[in-house]
């Protein structure tokens, strides 16, 4: 006997199809419809009867919905589990509805941003009043973020200040990551080097990481006193996190700044990209399949034809020629795993003549061949709903063969970095990140001719590090991040411990303050370690206070910091053969940032200002002084305008940097002189005549200002008793770049705009 129950709605009801199947009837749609027609009437009648019966035992359920602080929640969904009976809460948090259910039943309340509320109630024909108290969840939209020191550009996450696309579309940056980041506060413009100088730190104090793995020397080689470009093309990455201090315990071997790049997880479609540039050509192909993709790019750059056209300050023998190959492979493994392999291979050569400051007819050859390889393999998988595991290994190879006048030297640096990290959320309020890493680095330097100081030598350094970091959310308003990093260095034979702490508090729905403190370490530069392998890592302390307001495409941010350096390399009594680590320094400053993508239609602009006050007493400094790379005031205005009628995006960037100190041996005071200020107005135009075709034109320094970065002095006094000087200038007043980019793909609207 089959018992057909009158649906007791407290239990999940079997569906029609399930029941038909139970009786061996194929659940076919037409049959279902026939049955439906025949029994509709009967069903309706039965239904009516049921409702009438039910009508006798209708009860009212009412109550209020509040958060834990007693504030009413409007719009929450309150209902009896597995029934249709329920209602939404009103603006005062109140609700009421009627039900025909009886007995013990679960009352559920749901609202986005809050944990589901459940309470069993007993319906015995009387009205029931329920006080629903809902606990908020920590969610991305509402939760406070740790923002001290960091600029995150990630198209996936929300409320970012800086977007991956900005790197490509900032005038004057010509798709160079460092040049684009140089328009953000916290950076100082050092025009003759092109690297990221952060808060009184020099270019080597900024470390680049790709998918968490360390990169040695992220910049292409360049002639002395000419700006270098980053090796890594922005379009490879889906996210960029640029930290000007106080960064996570995961990142070591960086005194001032961490630039963390996350490569793309997948390619949208197969495509071929061809670029014809005024300085070379490139071709790239991306092949994507269901669970992965592969991409390769070959680029050839030869500045020779360009240098023939535009007069250069440099006396080239052979202008730079670079051949570069980039390959990417990404494969999903199972449901949760992702494997990525990334390789960058580069060979560059140039040679030039340096002329004597005293006598221009005396010239010396400078010739450099650079070979570079970077390989990065990473794997990421979810262990379960709460834990993810990621790991990777990177290999770096750099070889420089240099001829400088009568001497020549060869350098080889190799590094292997391996890391495993587990990320877990133990609850929505507590996240934990722990990992271990090993960095194995070897450096060899061979001089062909013994110089006054022979730098020949080698060292092998092993660093073993462990870190752990916890994010504790007291509520959506307040978060504490506490981390610790331990590092053991084989050369010194000692371990170090670096604490890192950040707090962030939400002061309003769009504003927050955060504070960060931490200590950071980095091995001294290779030439010092060769001289004395027992040198301790150099150390920096950061203290940062930040206020940020983000609302509907407008951002305001102000940050102030204090930074201290310890253990810096210092010549004892000015003797370069005798070094110790008594060097020290400080940096402090205040920085402002404003971005507005709303007030003017089709216009996006941002303004950055940084004030820096810094002094160091290190290397050959006779006493504490401001180093020559540090400028007190840096200002940038970046403006982008999309003009539909012209099918073009126009942009300009104005940068200003106040005078930088330099040392004039003719004066008493060390680093007591100042260069004129630096300023630059760069423009670019991207013209899109067809969806798959882009014509790109950019020009730096359109006003042709003769910027002077510093002065070189002759080593001896001239006949008149003074040291002769020569200004360090821009290699050319302007850099003009023209490119045509064509994309071939099935989807004709795909173009290279995001990668430019």
């Amino acid at each position, binding site marked *: 006997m089959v018992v057909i129950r009158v649906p007791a709605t407290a239990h999940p009801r079997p569906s029609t199809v*399930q029941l038909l199947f139970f009786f061996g009837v194929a659940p076919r749609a037409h049959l279902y419809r026939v049955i439906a027609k025949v*029994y509709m009437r009967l069903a309706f009648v039965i239904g009516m009867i049921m409702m009438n019966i039910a009508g006798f035992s209708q009860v009212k359920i009412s109550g209020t919905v509040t958060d834990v602080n007693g504030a009413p929640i*409007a719009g929450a969904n309150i209902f009896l589990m597995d029934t*249709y*009976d329920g209602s*939404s809460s009103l603006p005062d948090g109140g609700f009421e509805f009627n039900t025909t259910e009886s007995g013990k039943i679960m009352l559920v309340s749901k609202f986005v941003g809050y944990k589901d509320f459940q309470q069993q109630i007993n319906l015995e024909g009387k009205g029931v009043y329920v006080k629903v108290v809902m606990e908020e969840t920590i969610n991305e939209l509402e939760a406070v973020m740790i923002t001290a020191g960091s600029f995150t550009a990630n198209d996936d996450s929300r409320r970012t200040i800086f977007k991956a696309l900005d790197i490509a579309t900032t005038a004057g940056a010509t798709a160079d990551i460092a040049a684009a980041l140089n328009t953000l506060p916290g950076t100082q413009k050092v025009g003759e080097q092109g690297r990221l100088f952060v808060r009184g730190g020099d270019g080597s104090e900024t470390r680049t990481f790709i998918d968490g793995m360390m990169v040695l020397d992220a910049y292409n080689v360049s002639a002395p006193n000419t700006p270098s470009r980053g090796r890594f093309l922005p379009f490879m990455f889906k996210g960029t996190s640029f930290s000007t201090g106080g960064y996570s315990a995961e990142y070591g071997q960086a005194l001032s700044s961490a630039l963390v790049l996350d490569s793309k997880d997948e390619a*949208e479609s197969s495509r071929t990209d061809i670029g014809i540039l005024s300085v070379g050509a490139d071709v790239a192909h991306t092949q994507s399949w269901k669970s992965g993709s592969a991409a390769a790019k070959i680029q050839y750059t030869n500045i020779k034809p360009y240098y023939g056209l535009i007069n250069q300050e440099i006396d080239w023998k052979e202008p730079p020629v670079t051949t570069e190959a980039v390959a990417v492979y990404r494969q999903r493994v199972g449901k949760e795993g992702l494997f990525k392999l990334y390789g960058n291979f580069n060979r560059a050569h140039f040679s030039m003549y340096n002329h004597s400051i005293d006598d221009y007819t005396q010239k010396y050859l400078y010739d450099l061949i650079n070979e570079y390889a970077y390989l990065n393999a990473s794997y990421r998988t979810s262990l379960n709903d709460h834990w993810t595991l990621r790991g990777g290994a990177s290999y770096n190879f750099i070889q420089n063969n240099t001829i400088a006048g009568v001497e020549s030297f060869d350098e080889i640096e190799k590094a292997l970095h391996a890391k495993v990290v587990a990320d877990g959320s133990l609850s929505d309020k507590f996240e934990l990140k722990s990992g271990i890493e090993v960095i194995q680095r070897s450096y060899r330097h061979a001089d062909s001719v013994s110089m006054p100081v022979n730098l020949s030598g080698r060292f092998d350094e092993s660093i073993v590090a462990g870190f752990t970091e916890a994010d504790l959310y007291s509520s959506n308003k307040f978060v504490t991040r506490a981390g610790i990093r331990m590092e053991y260095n084989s050369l010194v034979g000692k371990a170090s411990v670096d604490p890192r702490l950040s707090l962030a508090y939400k002061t309003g729905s769009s504003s927050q303050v955060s504070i960060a403190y931490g200590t950071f370490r980095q091995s001294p530069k290779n030439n010092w370690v060769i001289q004395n392998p027992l040198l301790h890592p150099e150390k920096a302390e950061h203290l940062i206070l930040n206020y940020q307001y983000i609302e*509907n495409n407008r951002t305001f941010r102000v940050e102030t910091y204090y930074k201290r350096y310890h253990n810096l390399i210092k010549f004892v009594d000015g003797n370069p053969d005798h070094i110790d680590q008594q060097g020290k320094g400080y940096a402090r400053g205040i920085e402002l940032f404003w971005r507005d993508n709303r007030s003017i239609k089709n216009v996006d602009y941002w303004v950055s200002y940084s004030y820096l006050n810094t002094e160091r007493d290190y290397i050959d400094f006779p006493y504490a002084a401001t180093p020559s790379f540090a400028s007190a005031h840096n200002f940038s205005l970046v403006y982008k305008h999309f003009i539909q009628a012209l099918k073009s995006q126009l942009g300009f960037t104005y940068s200003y940097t106040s005078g930088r100190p330099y040392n004039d041996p003719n004066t008493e005071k060390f680093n007591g002189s100042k260069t004129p200020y630096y300023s630059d107005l760069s423009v670019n135009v991207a013209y899109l005549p067809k969806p798959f075709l882009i014509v790109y034109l950019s020009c730096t320094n359109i006003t042709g200002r003769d910027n002077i970065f510093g002065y070189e002095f002759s080593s001896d006094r001239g006949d008149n008793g003074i040291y002769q000087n020569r200004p360090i200038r821009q290699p050319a007043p302007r850099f003009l770049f023209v490119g045509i980019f064509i994309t071939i793909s099935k989807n004709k609207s795909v173009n290279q705009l995001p990668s430019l």
Partner: protein
Amino acid sequence: MAILLSVIAGPVYANDTRYVEAMQKSIQSVYSAKSIDELQTAVNSLERIASAEKVKWEPYYYMSFAFILMANQEKEPARKDAYLDQANAAIEKASAINANESEIVALVGFIHMIRVTVDPASRGAQYSGLAMQAFGKATALNPENPRALALTAQMQHGTAKFFGSPITDACVTLNAALQKFDTYKSDNPLAPQWGREMAMSLKKECN
């Protein structure tokens, strides 16, 4: 057998009628809602039905549709994205129940399309591709689905406008869509009905 079936199917079908009636009321409140709050109330009633009817895709479909409408009303980009996240979560549940329903796949594409509008310059390349892929799949699953075609036309129109190219392709697709709006009849009483007005307003651009 017939008697047996009558005993079984009767009460169950009573529920189905109840389901259809409750759904029709909720769907009507989605279509007629004017504010985010009204849409939230409609979503809540759909969510209640969904929690009781575990094998029906329609409640999740209309929840997702309502969240898309909320995203459309919201101006703040981060909140717009949050509504689209909720739309996505709902349509994934619908898809888990009936992966080959053309209407569901078309709505997935609609979500991608709205993602583009949050930040066309940054997201255009990625999400317009995903949207077109979904519309293509939806049309393949049911070539008669007017919404899949109307959304395709909308996307083609937006892309052409962005690049300043002619909207001819969009208008061809749109005409096909308008024709299907007249002819297509689903035997599901809860089948989506929206989209004709959107298509008609686009039609003005083609004249």
